[in-house]
């Protein structure tokens, strides 16, 4: 009788699977029959549709569709530009069918109702573009809105006139919205298979340059050429093959990946350590071997990602572990870069000891540590918002000092310091910007150091003290923790890790200018940490890979180089979405998840612990 039974009640991942939660939830909530198809909550649909339509118009007028149209996802079928116009109808269509599964509130089995609601909402969202097409045809608003152009009109109309645009966007919106609604209806396995297919297609299109580059390095470009069209994007046959292949894989692997992970997590003591060590070694092997086959551009990209991983790991200690919201972290990146430049470059204006890079590194660490102490000492006594604002100020002060006339005798003012030699590694290898592969290896080594430092410190007396300070500073102080010292230590450790990144950066680029150290860098690193998962090493790395690798850093292009001018817009959108949907980040730390979902988890635990505690009381 039942068509589908939604197997998973809610999205937020519980860190510890509550053994009874699933059963209890099903037992407690009342499943209701599907709603009649046309008895919709029209106000909700209208509201969401209107928001989506405004979003569509905004995206169009930001010129994203036109700019991104050049980048094909699937040859002749879908470009990144058009993709940017179907995301919102899909999301809105799916969102409209969302119901909270709550105790005592009937949960309607999804069905035609959700599909029709999704279609209606999607049509409204798509209608935003129809409206825009009509407006562009009749009014000229190019004066304030620079992208109010015939090019946009043509793109919206597929070169077939305004009437076509009106109809087609209503239709596309409805179809995509219906698909979004359908996602609620299909069983969770089908949903997972579908998502895997979509992500595989999108992922392989995004990774095109990387894949082809690697394939060339390995001499198997013939294979890859079959998937990618000569002018970019997946070929249709390639897309079909990839979708089918990944779909089959997802179907076969259903539950197995989670199962394997659960098995590893369930291991105890040495066996677990061995499993983790195995995973780490395998990852390290891939990271060491891959670049050998990769070309210059790929290695350049990897090196950039690595530099940001290093920065993010450092900031993670400050923000994620000790809970100090540092908005001026770029200061340490800058001090690291400049001190390395002064110590190694012959062209350094004032003093030029021309030390070898590794020797200079000692000086870099000492100097940055000192600056960390110097900035940290006054800052650390503040709390919360005040602290954040003051760090923001210090970050800017450091940059202005490097820019100033007063110190230009030392650091060259706006001219910066140029002709910085590469890093020589004990006469074995020369690391320079001209050889991104060696830069990547150097970055990799320092990332390994930073990961080790974060990992060991978190599991030490110091790490626990940081957590206590983050939880409740007053109580931490009353429990005998010298909060000033402990926070200062976090600040300095973070500063030193950041300075490594700076020292490698100056050797890689060969020059340093104040303009490389804008506030934007601080913000980007912070976004990476938040997006990836604050307090979690793997999360921070994943965050850098996705944001810096795909979208690009403040000045560094990512895989989707077309995004460069929309980077900040997308960063912001991602951040907002993340805060709403998954505030603990991409790969959360168990602790952060606890903090953010404390009430829910406490309730679960309470429900579970109830009987147990009563027994305990009786025994005593």
């Amino acid at each position, binding site marked *: 009788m039942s068509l589908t039974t939604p197997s998973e009640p809610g999205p937020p991942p519980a860190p510890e699977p509550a053994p009874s939660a699933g059963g209890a939830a099903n037992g407690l909530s009342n499943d209701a029959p599907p709603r009649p198809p046309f008895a919709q909550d029209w106000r909700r649909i209208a509201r969401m549709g209107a928001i989506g339509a405004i979003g569509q118009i905004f995206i169009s007028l930001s010129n994203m569709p036109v700019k991104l149209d050049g980048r094909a996802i699937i040859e002749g079928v879908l470009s990144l530009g058009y993709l940017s116009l179907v995301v919102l109808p899909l999301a809105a269509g799916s969102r409209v069918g969302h119901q909270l599964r709550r105790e005592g509130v009937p949960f309607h089995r999804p069905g035609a109702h959700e599909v029709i609601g999704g279609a209606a909402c999607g049509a409204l969202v798509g209608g935003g573009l129809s409206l825009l097409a009509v407006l562009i045809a009749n009014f000229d608003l190019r004066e304030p809105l620079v992208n109010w152009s015939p090019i946009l009109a043509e793109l919206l109309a597929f070169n077939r006139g305004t009437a076509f645009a009106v109809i087609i966007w209503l239709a596309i919106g409805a179809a995509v919205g219906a698909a979004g609604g359908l996602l609620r209806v299909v069983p969770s396995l089908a949903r997972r298979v579908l998502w895997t297919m979509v992500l595989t297609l999108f992922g392989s299109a995004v990774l095109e340059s990387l894949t082809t580059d690697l394939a060339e390095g390995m001499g198997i470009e013939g294979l890859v050429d079959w998937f990618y069209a000569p002018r970019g994007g997946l070929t249709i046959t390639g897309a079909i093959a990839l979708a089918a292949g990944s779909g089959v894989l997802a179907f076969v692997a259903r539950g197995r990946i989670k199962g394997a992970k659960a098995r590893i997590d369930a291991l105890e003591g040495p066996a677990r350590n061995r499993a983790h060590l195995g995973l780490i070694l395998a990852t390290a092997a891939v990271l060491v071997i891959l670049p050998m086959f990769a070309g210059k551009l790929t290695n350049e990209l990897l090196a950039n990602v690595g530099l940001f991983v290093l920065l993010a790991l450092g900031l993670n200690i400050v923000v994620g572990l000790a809970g100090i919201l540092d908005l001026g972290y770029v200061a340490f990146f800058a001090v690291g870069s400049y001190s390395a430049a002064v110590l190694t470059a012959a062209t350094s204006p004032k003093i030029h000891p021309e030390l070898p890079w590794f020797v200079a590194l000692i000086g870099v660490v000492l100097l940055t540590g000192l600056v960390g102490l110097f900035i940290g000492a006054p800052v650390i006594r503040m709390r919360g918002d005040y602290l954040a604002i003051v760090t923001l100020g210090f970050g800017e002060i450091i940059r202005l000092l490097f820019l100033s006339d007063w110190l230009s005798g030392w650091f060259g003012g706006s001219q910066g310091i140029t002709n910085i030699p590469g890093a020589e590694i004990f006469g074995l290898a020369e690391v320079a910007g001209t050889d991104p592969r060696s830069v990547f290896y150097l970055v990799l080594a320092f990332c390994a150091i930073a990961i*080790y*430092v974060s990992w*060991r*410190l978190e*599991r*030490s*007396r*110091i*790490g*626990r*003290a940081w*957590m*206590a300070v983050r*939880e*409740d500073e*007053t*109580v*931490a*102080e*009353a*429990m*005998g*923790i*010298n*909060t000033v010292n402990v926070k200062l*230590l976090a600040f300095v*450790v973070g500063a030193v890790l950041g300075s490594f990144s700076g020292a490698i950066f100056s050797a890689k680029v060969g020059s340093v200018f104040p303009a490389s150290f804008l506030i934007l860098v601080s913000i980007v690193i912070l976004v990476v940490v938040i997006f990836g998962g604050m307090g979690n090493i793997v999360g921070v790395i994943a965050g850098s890979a996705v944001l810096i690798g795909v979208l690009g850093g403040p000045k560094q292009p990512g895989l989707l180089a077309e995004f460069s001018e929309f980077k900040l817009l997308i960063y912001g959108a991602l951040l907002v979405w993340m805060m709403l949907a998954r505030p603990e980040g991409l790969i959360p730390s168990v*602790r952060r998840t*606890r*903090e953010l979902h*404390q009430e829910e*988890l*406490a309730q679960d*635990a*309470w429900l579970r*612990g109830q009987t147990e*505690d009563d027994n*305990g*009381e009786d*025994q*005593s």
Partner: protein
Amino acid sequence: MSTAAQQPILETRGLGVDFGGLKALDGLDLAVYPGEIVSVIGPNGAGKTTLFNAITATVAASEGDIRFEGESLIGLDPNRVTSRGIARTFQNVRLFANMTVLENVMVSQHCRTRQSVFGALLFTKAFRDEEAEITERGKEVLSFFGHRLVGYRFDQPAYTLSYANRRRLEIARAMATQPKLILLDEPVAGMNPTESAELTGLIGRLRDEWGFAIVVIEHDMEVVREVSDRVVVLDHGVKIAEGDYADVAVDPQVIEAYLGHGATA
């Protein structure tokens, strides 16, 4: 317990705390002797918690002196006071909610341990020994409360604990700082009669087995009668009576203070 010949472990002389004109404590003289359990009672707002805050340097004393083992605590930071040997609990339980039960009692040994960044990074023998010792002592103080905070509970975040267990963990956390004097701020508030009777027994054992001197703020007169060697009564920041439970309970000024405030005693 208290012998006049003995030197008090804690002594306040003319202690005053001023909150912008409001005298929360005024000219308070108080002495606590080693191995003694002193109860501080008084109506709400009498200044009891403020007394604890002043001793632990959470609020600054505006006049008078606080001496611990003969040395003044005035001007010290809270963490220095704790490392001198005074630990406390909070009236409104303030655990490190997202840290595990075991981590809560490990982190409060901070001022008794030395290993820093280099030990942790190089994973030295000294570091490993100290970690083992911290864990060991943590488990020891937790086992003081029977089966409630041990076993699988070690690794549970503190917020999952029941209310009574949170209060117990707060005491364990204070014990782990290896104090000589423990300040308990309404330790049985919110507990049911069975639980509070049990905790009353534990307070006695804290003194007998662990050798702590204890100052306890308590509203439950049953508990006060049970545990105290001496009772100090505060009202409006002033000490209005001091002595055995039996004497204090019939003191007209004390009865007046409670009845006058309409509070139940």
